[in-house]
């Protein structure tokens, strides 16, 4: 750009067009926003024929700040920064051209500063982005200007190009920042999955492995670039293969989460038990992309659990064997008196104890349901002549309580068979239970239709078991009411858990 063109009177329309082309070309190739400002100041000073010009933009706080300038003193810029006829976001305002600042009603100190800078005439040209003001460029003249229509529209044209270019540069900066952030976030997530102490994988819609994190690659001995040839299904134990593939296939077909467990050969050929939790993953448009899953090596837990299971089975076996030995001793001891009622009572009680142990070992000595207990215990004795109805909600009993309740029910049943409602065809027994407030369970045994009942003269073991054994075992109470129409036994127990 030559000085003679800048000040010459002979600046033609074609010169102006040429300068605009150059400006357009320069901003197109600009690699930074500073290059855009420089090109803009070039074209402004050249075509609008001023020595001094500036570009100002609203900062984040909405204050108009000088971002590029030519021929302005520091003092001027410091004092007049923030001075603007527009607010951020004003909608496409027209430019303002002031022929003589002193003739306006601007504040006196501003007029003084402008005059002090040797400026008489000024142009305020708004810069807009998507129609909204983001800043302005200023032209300054030492002489009064008439601002003919041609130079006014030229100023607007430059402002549009400049505003557009700044917008583009901003978008580019934002895009790059977002990209950098994305790269950083991706690197972070990649590291997280890579370093995670469990196997993480992703499959395509056909179930082929697309991605394995490091632990998973190490497990199967697969190189990072060897995933194309990797077939995880070939590593499943032959006995587990069919069920795992069927369940995984179904999850893929239905797009459902799935949990499978099975043995897989690791890189060394050792069988390890992996528990896999997989979920379907979808693209933004809802199309199925495959599964994503986590495998946890539970070989050790499995073997501990198996050992525990074995130990529990052994313990149950021994307990029952011991009961069998006690029974054998009794049978031998009472061989001659085998038909005595006392012997069969004893053996019956021993059997109920074994039955209760059986039920408890079936639930691993955790807790047992009241229904099952009642069913098993009542089914254990020979059926009487009356009928028993059992009714109650699901309720869980702790092992100790279950044993006590089992023995109590057996005593009640035995008594009913011998003397009570189960000794005649017309008799009925109703066994019912319900949870009562404060975590207690109420069990009610009611006999009807049996022979007339009289309280026993002697407190037998059965009565004792009911009235005292239950109290201590169940931390509750038991009452036996020998009503003439039938025995009523009410048991109340403190219980930990219900369902």
């Amino acid at each position, binding site marked *: 750009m030559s000085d003679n063109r800048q000040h010459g009177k002979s600046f033609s329309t074609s010169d102006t067009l040429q300068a605009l082309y150059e400006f357009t070309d320069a901003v197109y190739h600009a690699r930074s926003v500073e290059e855009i400002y420089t090109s803009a100041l070039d074209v402004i000073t050249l075509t609008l024929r001023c020595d001094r010009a500036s570009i100002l933009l609203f900062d984040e706080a909405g204050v108009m700040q000088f971002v590029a300038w030519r021929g302005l003193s520091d003092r001027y810029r410091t004092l007049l920064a923030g001075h603007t006829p527009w607010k951020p976001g004003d909608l496409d305002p027209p430019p303002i051209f002031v022929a003589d600042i002193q003739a306006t009603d601007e504040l006196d100190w501003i007029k003084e500063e402008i005059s002090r800078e040797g400026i008489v005439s000024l142009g305020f040209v708004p810069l807009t982005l998507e129609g909204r003001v983001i800043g302005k460029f200023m032209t300054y003249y030492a002489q009064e200007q008439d601002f003919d229509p041609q130079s006014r529209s030229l100023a607007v044209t430059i402002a549009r190009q400049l505003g557009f270019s700044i917008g583009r540069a901003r978008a580019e900066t934002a895009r790059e920042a977002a990209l950098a952030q994305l790269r950083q976030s991706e690197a972070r997530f990649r590291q997280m999955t890579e370093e995670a102490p469990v196997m993480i994988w992703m499959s395509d819609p056909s179930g082929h492995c697309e991605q394995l994190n490091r632990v998973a690659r190490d497990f199967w001995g697969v190189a990072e670039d060897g995933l194309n040839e990797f077939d995880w299904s070939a590593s499943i134990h032959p006995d587990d293969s069919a069920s795992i593939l069927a369940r995984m296939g179904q999850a893929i077909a239905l797009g459902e989460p799935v949990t499978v467990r099975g043995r897989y050969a690791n890189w060394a050929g050792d069988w390890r038990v992996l528990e896999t939790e997989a979920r379907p993953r979808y693209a933004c448009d809802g199309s199925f992309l495959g599964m994503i899953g986590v495998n946890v090596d539970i070989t050790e837990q499995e073997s501990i659990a198996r050992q525990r299971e074995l130990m529990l*089975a052994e313990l*149950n*076996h*021994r*307990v*029952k*064997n011991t*009961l*069998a*030995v*006690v*029974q*054998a*001793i009794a*049978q*031998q001891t009472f*061989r001659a008196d085998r038909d005595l009622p006392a012997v069969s009572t004893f*053996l019956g009680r*021993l*059997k109920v104890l*074994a039955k209760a142990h*059986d039920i408890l*070992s*079936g639930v691993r000595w955790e807790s047992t349901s009241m229904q099952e207990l009642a069913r098993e215990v009542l089914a254990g004795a020979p059926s009487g002549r009356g009928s028993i109805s059992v009714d109650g909600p699901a309720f869980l009993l702790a092992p100790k309580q279950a044993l006590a309740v089992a023995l109590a029910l057996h005593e009640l049943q035995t008594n009913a068979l011998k003397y009570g409602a189960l000794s005649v065809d017309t008799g009925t027994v109703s066994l019912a239970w319900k949870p009562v407030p404060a975590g207690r369970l109420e069990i009610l045994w009611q006999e009807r239709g049996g022979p007339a009942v009289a309280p026993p003269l002697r407190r037998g073991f059965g009565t004792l078991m009911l009235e005292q054994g239950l109290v201590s075992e169940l931390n509750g109470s038991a009452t036996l009411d020998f009503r003439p129409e039938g025995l009523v036994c009410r048991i109340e127990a403190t219980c930990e858990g219900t369902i």
Partner: protein
Amino acid sequence: MSRLANCRILVVEDEFLIAAALCDMLEDAAAVVVGPATTIAAAMQILQEQPVDAAILDMNLNGQWSDPIAVDLQSRRIPFVFTTGYGANERTERFGARVVPKPYGWEEVEEQLAQAMLDGVAPSP
């Protein structure tokens, strides 16, 4: 007259007291006790040497599954019942045998044994 009268019943049970009680009960029922055997080897030996009509077989002998005896009994077409403290398991199914859970009363053993003799022997797997 007991259903087991004069039947030759092999008793395989490693717990002496239980075996003794079983023997007593069998004798009371007029059965002829063969054994008792307390090991797999002893039981197999008896089966080779003596005629047996039926057997009462403890599923576990000193920590060993008594499967070989069950297989031998099946191949000789001798009916048997398992007694066990483990409850029903895959063996009951495999051998199609009746199970008497421990502790048991004499009535149960007698009933199941008599039934097993009526069932005949399941074909070998």
